[in-house]
Structures are given as C-alpha cells and as structure tokens.
C-alpha cells in the first residue's frame, strides 16, 4: 500500500497494521521534556515504578522555558530536572549551553530524519521539518516513553499542503503557515498530520521550514512533515548524533485532503488577537499601534529570522514609544548573529537583546505585557493572557513585519520602512 510520510515512518516503528485511524504501539527514537513539563513527568515516572530511562542518550530535559531561572519556584523546578537527569545520566544542558528546545535539538543532530520523536511540549511538531514524526504529548505520556522506549499512536490521516509559485522578497515561512491556518482554522487539521509540498517549499531555507512545521499544532495538527531533500539530508549528516535512515512518502500516497496555496501575490500575513486563525494581510492591520515587539521563539528565533529583521532595522531606530526584544533561540544562533554584526544593528536601533529562552512567548519573563498593551510577536500563539495580562493583546507576524512595526511604532509592511 502506498503510504504518506506519517504512515511510512510509523510502519518502520511498529509490528501493528498501519492504516489511518488505527492505533499502533511504536518504538520511540528520542523523548524530551522542558523545565515546566519535566517535574510532572519525573513524578509519574516514579509512580510507574520505573528505575531507568530506556536509553540515556535518547532521553533529554532542556531547561528553556523559565530559564535562566526567573524566580525561586522556577529555580526549584529546574533543580528537580537537573537532579533527575544526573541520576539517570541522561541528556541535560545548563544555561549557556542549551537553547530553545526546538532550535537546539536539530542543531545538535539529536532529532533526525525517519525517527519518531516525542516531546512534552506542543511545538515538538517543529521537528517534522527534519522528516521526523515528531509530536507533542503530556508529561505522563512522556514518562511512559522514558520508561518503555515506546508509546501508542493513532495513525493520523494526512492533509497534503502544496505551496506553489514564487513569493516576493517580503514573504517568509511564517507568512506561508499563517496563510494556511487562516484558511483551515485552528482545528482544520485536528488529529491529522500535515505534509508540506510544492515548488515554493523546496526553495525555502531550513529555518523557514522549521517555522512552517512549528505551527502545525496551531491548526490542531499532530505534526507538520516535510519529505527530506538533499539540503536537509546534508544538514542532518553534518550534525547527526547517531545513525539515521531517512524515510519518504510514496509518490502515490493517498491523502485525506489536499490544498494548494499560491504564494505569488501573497502579502505578509498577521494573526490578530486572540486566535492564530484570525489571519489578515498586513495592509488590513496597518496602523495598529504596538507597545512591544518580540523577535525570537521556537518559531522565528533562528539565524535567518534575525538576518531578515536586521535587514529592515539597519540604520534605523525603534520608535520612541515602542520597545523591541530580540531573543536568539540558541547559543549557536547567538554567536552567529554576533559574528555577522547583527547585534550592532539591533543595539544601534535601540533593541534589547536577551539570552536564549522561551522568554515572553508564553508569558514567562523577559518582556511581559501590562493590561492594555499590545505586542507584535514572531512567536506562535496569541491566546488571551498568553504574554502577560489577560487584558493585553498579541499579534503574530514574521520577523520582517515585526521589525518594520518596531520602527514605525505600529503594524507596518516592511516595504514601507525600506522605501
């Protein structure tokens, strides 16, 4: 039977029959938590009577959400994670050597094509861009995977999304995924896998592909898969922490649905409060004032995101009533941005640069909003209270729109700043 990428990966990891809708027991290649979901996973792991994780080099805890510890309670949570990791001799990195989990893991070759990867974090779907069936779960499921090296999965139906055409210079992966979520809604792919295809996808750099896969969950998707191409395989081979065998969808696979998005005349997209599906072309939101701009997160905190923001900000100043927070998603990105002189551009513009962390994305720290404030953010969620006060607002956008809005002090198309 011809298989979608999700089906083909599951079939390599199970003895059960694989067809959309069936439930399979699968082996797990890599399983991780962060500092928030770690402590409940540790508690459940103990309750299960488990003594040892199934393979310490395939189990990890990444302190990235409330780290560097933002208060005493967060420090206690990170401490609990650290002590468990040392006890188990599993993967754990201190601040200064870690980064936002979904940026750090692929950089370090810890998530690889053809694998099944579980993370106790909903944005684990990001790793679908590596050609891995990567999906978010809760802490108890993750503890079970640590204990057994396996999990159960319902084989998802797959929606094929093809991006065709050649976009303008103002379009990035963020605009492409927001356009999709605007079209199908926040539950348009509920329980399903998304599989991205098309000419415009093939031309995207890897960073933009991570952005695309990252927000599959915002459409309700289990994962956002991309078939590995030579560009991706080379990246994986250069960094791999272990052997891997890429898996591909069959050419004649059967999809539960398919749709095409033409990027040719696409305008940059923004998602207005308070749902990621409230998507508009930027021109329809232009002029809306912003108090804060955040460029970073597992969605858009990679080097090409910072480069595109710097391109807009070079020689310009952040509006006097607006503050700009730039948070590279990992230390590799941080160092590269520094080497390329991007930090000078940001600092000259009047931006704040922070250490890698999820930071304000989920209302943790490093840029929390007061009541009545509005932030345009390159992150992935704009729910009520997501970045602070339940009376604040978040607008989602790509790094170019975010940078342009920082300069203008209101939502703005980057071409206006560059004119």
């Amino acid at each position, binding site marked *: 039977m011809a298989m979608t990428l999700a089906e083909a990966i599951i079939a390599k990891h199970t003895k059960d029959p694989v067809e959309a809708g069936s*439930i399979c027991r699968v082996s797990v290649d890599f399983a991780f938590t962060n500092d*928030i*979901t770690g*402590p*409940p996973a540790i*508690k*459940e792991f103990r*309750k*299960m*009577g*488990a003594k040892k994780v199934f393979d310490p080099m395939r189990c990890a805890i990444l302190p990235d*959400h*409330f780290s560097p510890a933002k*208060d005493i*309670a*967060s420090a*206690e*949570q990170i401490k609990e994670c650290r002590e468990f990791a040392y006890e188990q001799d599993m993967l754990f990195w201190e601040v200064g050597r870690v980064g936002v989990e979904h940026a750090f893991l692929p950089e370090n070759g810890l998530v690889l094509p053809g694998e099944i990867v579980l*993370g*106790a*974090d*909903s944005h*684990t779907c990001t790793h679908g861009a590596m050609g891995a069936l990567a999906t*978010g*779960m*809760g*802490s*108890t*499921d993750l*503890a*079970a995977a640590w*204990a*057994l090296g396996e999990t*159960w999965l*319902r084989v998802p139906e797959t929606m094929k999304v093809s991006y065709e055409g050649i976009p303008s210079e103002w379009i990035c992966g963020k605009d492409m995924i927001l356009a999709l979520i605007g079209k199908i809604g*926040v*539950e348009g792919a*509920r*329980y399903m896998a998304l599989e991205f295809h098309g000419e415009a996808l093939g031309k995207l750099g890897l960073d933009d592909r991570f952005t695309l896969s990252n927000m599959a*969950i915002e459409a*309700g998707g*289990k994962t956002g898969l991309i078939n590995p191409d030579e560009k991706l395989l080379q990246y994986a081979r250069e960094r791999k922490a272990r052997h891997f065998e890429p898996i591909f969808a069959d050419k004649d696979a059967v999809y539960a649905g398919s749709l095409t998005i033409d990027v040719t005349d696409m305008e940059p997209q923004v998602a207005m409060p308070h*749902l990621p599906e409230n998507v508009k072309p930027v021109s329809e939101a232009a002029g809306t004032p912003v108090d804060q701009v955040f460029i970073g997160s597992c969605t858009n905190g990679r080097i090409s995101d910072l480069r595109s923001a710097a391109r807009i900000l070079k020689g310009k100043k952040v509006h006097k009533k607006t503050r700009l927070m730039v948070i590279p998603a990992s230390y590799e990105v941080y160092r590269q941005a520094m080497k390329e002189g991007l930090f000078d551009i940001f600092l000259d513009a009047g931006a704040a640069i922070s250490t890698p962390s999820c930071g304000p994305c*989920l*209302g*943790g720290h490093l840029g929390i909003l007061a009541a009545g404030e509005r932030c345009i953010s390159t992150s992935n*969620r704009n*729910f*009520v*209270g*997501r970045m*602070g006060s*339940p009376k604040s607002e978040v607008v989602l956008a790509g790094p170019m729109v975010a940078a342009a809005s920082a300069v203008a002090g209101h939502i703005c198309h980057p071409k206006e700043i560059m004119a």
Partner: protein
Amino acid sequence: METTLKGKAWVYGDNVDTDVIIPARYLVTSDERSLAAHCMDDIDETYTKGVSKGDVITAGNNFGCGSSREHAPIAIKGSGASCVIAKSFARIFYRNAINIGLPILECTETDRIAKGDLIEIDLTRGTITNRTKDETYHAKPFPEFLQNLIGLGGLVPYVRARLSE
C-alpha cells in the same frame, strides 16, 4: 473512579485553550491545589469562586487546544469538576485527561446545556442527563484500545504492569 457524576454545568465556547485553563504564570508548580486555585482565571473569574465538587464543564469544539501542559487537566480535576463534555477535544489534552484520570466525554449536543443546568452522567453507559431540561444526550464511545487502558486504571498502572513482565 466513580462512574456516576452529578453537578451543575459551567458552559464555555469553542477553542478553550490550555493558556486560559491554567495561565503559564502559574506553571511554577505542578501541585494540583495550587493550580486549581487559578483554573479558568483568564476566561472566567467566577469559576474558582463558584465551582462545587462534581460540577461539569461543557464546551464546543477543540477544547484544550494549544500547549501540551498536563497542568491544564490537573487544574480542572483539582478544582472539583468531575468531567469535561465537549463537541471535540484537541488531541494532546485528550490524552492528558485520560492519563491523569479526568473523565472527558465527546458529545455533539453540548449547545443544549445552559450555565447552571443540573447534569448527571453515567460514565459506563456514556449517557448525559440534563435534569434541569429533562433531556438525555449520548457521548461518543472511546475506541476499544482506550477503553482497555481506562479499564486498567490508566497509563501509570499499564506501564507498571509492562515493567514487571
């Protein structure tokens, strides 16, 4: 787990996300009581003050979308609510609720339930009786695999049994 549940309804709409069920600013602990104290804070300030043991949360589509935080079903369970009935659930929340022992039911007729209606649930039969309106609704049964998992007492006893094999 009790199989007969009874309480008044707290009614919400579509896409209730885990950030409003338990905002991230409270995720500095996974203690059930501490989380329960802030359950639904950002969507309904009256919830924690008014909820009584046994009450039922009802909602539209895609309940529990967003973050994978297991703290969300933990907060609901800790608040005293006995069950969540929704037209559909986001997949991570669905797994999490089953794993931590918070009963959830998928039912297409939640629009018929109004805030404060007295609801009785028979979990074995999957029936939901609205005593205020004198109506009965039916929940979608769980897939067989999950029925077995629930029957074993959830994922923790399942793993415990597997490890002792």
